[in-house]
């Protein structure tokens, strides 16, 4: 019986082969490569030195973190309002809302860039209208800047974050709200004292998903600005694609930095939600 059991391990082989060939080995290789010089082939920390000293890469790290934080924060705030509204409306409104969010959540990358170019690009529909009516603030809007990119990122954060937050609101018992009203608390006090603390683990979980989503976003920004913006994914891809000589080491170091940023964000959000989790679960 036990011997025959191990024959079944063979069924795991295809899975392991694919995972090793296209996931584990490539990722380990890229991490190892980050410690190898592109010029001499010797083991070195020079790639990391370049990453942290060269202005372009420092800016890329800074911009990536900034845009990811901004768009994730904006996404969370809108998602909180939207999910709470869906929770309060319930029934039909909620399900229609969720259906549309689900549909729109696939809207990202090149199509999103294309739609925003039509809308807010240099000769975009809204920009032209603004010029006609003399709304300078809108007419001078520059889509091809970090602020412009942040705006586009916020767009694809909203459906995802709202969809992630709606189920969390089901954990907010109507009885709590009723109890707090009977105890004399108003709506704001309830959300500040009870609602948000209870939701904090979900908020933090969603935040880290949004952050990752923005950090790794590539197609949207590349379609708008090609290589001309200092962002981590763009610079990483730049080391490998379209160059005469592939820079494995530098690209590896940038990738490791990006993964580290992601891991740090996961730790931070986990730590915050743990502080709020005491007593909430169990």
């Amino acid at each position: 019986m036990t011997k025959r059991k191990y024959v079944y391990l063979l069924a795991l082989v295809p899975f392991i082969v694919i995972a090793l060939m296209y996931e584990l080995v490539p990722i380990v290789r890229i991490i190892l490569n980050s410690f190898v010089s592109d010029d001499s082939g010797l083991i070195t920390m020079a790639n990391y030195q370049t990453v942290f000293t060269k202005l372009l890469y420092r800016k890329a790290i800074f911009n990536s973190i900034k845009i990811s934080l901004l768009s994730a924060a904006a996404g969370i705030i809108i998602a909180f309002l939207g999910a709470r509204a869906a929770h309060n409306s319930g029934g039909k409104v909620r399900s229609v809302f969720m259906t549309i969010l689900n549909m729109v959540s696939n809207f990202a990358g090149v199509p999103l860039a294309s739609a925003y170019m039509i809308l807010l690009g240099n000769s975009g529909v809204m920009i032209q209208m603004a010029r006609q009516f003399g709304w300078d603030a809108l007419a001078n809007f520059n889509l091809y800047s970090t602020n412009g990119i942040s705006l586009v990122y916020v767009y694809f954060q909203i459906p995802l974050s709202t969809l992630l937050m709606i189920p969390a609101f089901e954990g907010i018992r109507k009885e709590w709200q009723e109890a707090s009203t009977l105890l004399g608390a108003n709506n704001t006090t309830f959300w500040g004292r009870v609602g948000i603390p209870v939701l904090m683990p979900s908020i933090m979980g969603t935040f880290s998903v949004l952050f990752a989503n923005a950090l790794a976003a590539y197609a949207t920004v590349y379609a708008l600005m090609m290589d001309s913006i200092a962002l981590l994914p763009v610079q990483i891809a730049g080391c490998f694609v379209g160059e005469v000589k592939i820079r494995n080491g530098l690209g590896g170091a940038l990738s490791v930095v990006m993964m580290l940023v992601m891991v740090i964000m996961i730790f931070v959000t986990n730590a915050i939600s743990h502080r709020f989790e005491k007593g909430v679960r169990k």
Partner: protein
Amino acid sequence: MKKHSAGSTAIILLILIYLLIPLVVSAIYSLFSNWTGIVPRGFTIEKYVEIFSDPLFRAALARTILICIIPIVITIVVVLLALFVTAIYFPRLEKYVQIICMIPYTIQGVILSISILSLYVSNKTILGNRLIMLIGAYCIIILPYIYQGIRNGMRAVNMPVLLEAAEMLGASKLYAFFRVIVPNILSAIIVSSLLAVGIIFGDYVLVRNLDGSAFQNIQIYLYQAMKSDGMKASAVFVVIMAVTFAISAVVLYLQSRQNKSAKGAK
């Protein structure tokens, strides 16, 4: 209470308007040759005629559909086998399968594609073939979705008891798995494959980094149209969104049917 729900509806409407504006504007843009004032003028469907009669567009569409099939089939078979063995014989290994399946979630497209590229680009065997690399990368990028779909399906059907029941009735575990479990998680498999189709259909990163412009999929076609002709790009955009929405509509329909039958069983 009334006031409350009016406020909620207003928020939901605002969000929906914000989300739908880019879609609606692009759709209108693709249908009018002149839109500089408030009202667009010159209604025409010439851009749709143009793209559908463009062999490059049709080829890009066909390529995109074809490239979906192979990785999805491979990943489903591989994950099914792995989960069958771990669930029945080696429950302790399941944790590791899960970790491997969830890594692509955090790594995402850019790092995955350049990792694969840098490993195989100078390989002289078939592994160095760009299309093979692309298929491998697609297998990995859809792994979390396929894994979760199949895993949730297995949880929902109470797999251990069903397998024991089948075994007591004289079926072998392998027979029971394919005859009893797989038919019951079929709709879960279909849903996750459709999600995977959506992901591959919307992919630009992997195909650009791994296959340059040699393998022109629909996203690359859109990108190139964007650079030359906004109206044509909008038409391509409408086609892509129509397909994407159709896929997610089918997914939502299947999921709601699944939930209904799950509720019926309880």
